[in-house]
């Protein structure tokens, strides 16, 4: 058993999680009047907080909010359809370009040294990553400004 008085953290732990508490702490509290009083004070405090009256709105919040809602919400499904439509158009466009200009595209790259192709790809990829990061940051700033969430 520890002879030194317990600190507030230990006493709070004793009151809130007696089962997980160190045996030294439990034994000390059983034998020390001061720490026992302190633990009882915390106990009473927690009981008091638990028994505090729960606040209630003095108006019908549900009616007020529901009255402001649109009759039906297809926003999410519309957004999804639009997203799939864009993806579909993008894939079709790429396929058409490859179908029509496959030979020309291959010839285009045959005339360029491999190192140049590598440089073009790296530059393109870096630019794409940079633009994506920038777009994401702008999006976050705009959402924050809108105070949407």
């Amino acid at each position, binding site marked *: 058993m520890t002879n030194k008085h317990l600190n*507030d953290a230990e006493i709070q732990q004793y009151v809130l999680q007696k089962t997980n508490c160190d045996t030294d702490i439990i034994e000390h509290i059983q034998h020390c009047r001061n720490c026992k009083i302190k633990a009882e004070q*915390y106990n*009473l*405090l927690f009981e008091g*907080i638990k028994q505090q009256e729960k606040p209630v709105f003095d108006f019908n919040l*549900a009616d007020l909010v*529901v009255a402001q*809602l649109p009759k039906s*919400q297809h926003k999410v499904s519309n957004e999804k359809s639009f997203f799939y439509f864009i993806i579909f158009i993008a894939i079709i466009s790429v396929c058409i370009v490859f179908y029509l200009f496959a030979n020309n595209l291959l010839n285009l790259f045959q005339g360029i040294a491999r190192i140049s192709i590598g440089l073009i790809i790296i530059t393109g990829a870096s630019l794409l990553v940079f633009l994506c990061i920038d777009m994401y940051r702008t999006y976050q700033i705009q959402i924050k400004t809108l105070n*949407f969430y």
Partner: protein
Amino acid sequence: VNYKNKNNLADQLLVDKVLHGDTSVFKAIMKNTEGLVAQIIFKMIPGVEDRKDIAQDIYLKTFQKLGSFKFQSKLSTWVAQIAYNTCINHLEKKKLILLNNYNDGEEPDGETLEKQNNEIDPFSNETEKFIFKKELSEILKIEINKLSPVYKILITLYHTEELNYAEIAEITELPEGTVKNYLFRARKVLRDNLLLTYKKEAL
């Protein structure tokens, strides 16, 4: 927190219905979460007239963002998170203090502790204990209101709403360790202030 149980299924059912256009089901979501939202608003927003607008704002945001809810937590926790953030934004706009720098002071040594407890021991006999318990509710209400909004809400979520540290951390977006630390400090400040008030009233 990976939350998968029958409450989660009930949440999913409600959310699906609202997303498929049945806005009347949103009332059920509101009924399930209104108590927790009221606690957050009442504890964080001092202006009575602001509370009505903020409460509506919270649920309108919830409705608009419902499609993005991923069921990673309870629906009530997610709504509470929106409520907490809305209140924080409101307090920041009004430039109100979110967190006071309470001076915890040093732990008193044994002798001082004994002296303090002898001076302020509300449990020296059963009658005093009974009177103290009766007065406690009123004094406590005042003392809780004196705490900063963040401390107030942490105390309420843990002790009144009986949420665990992980859920509180999710609502407040604070690390779990910070939640525990703030809660410890808030309880200590409350206890010290309560004893001080009791001592003053006893004199």
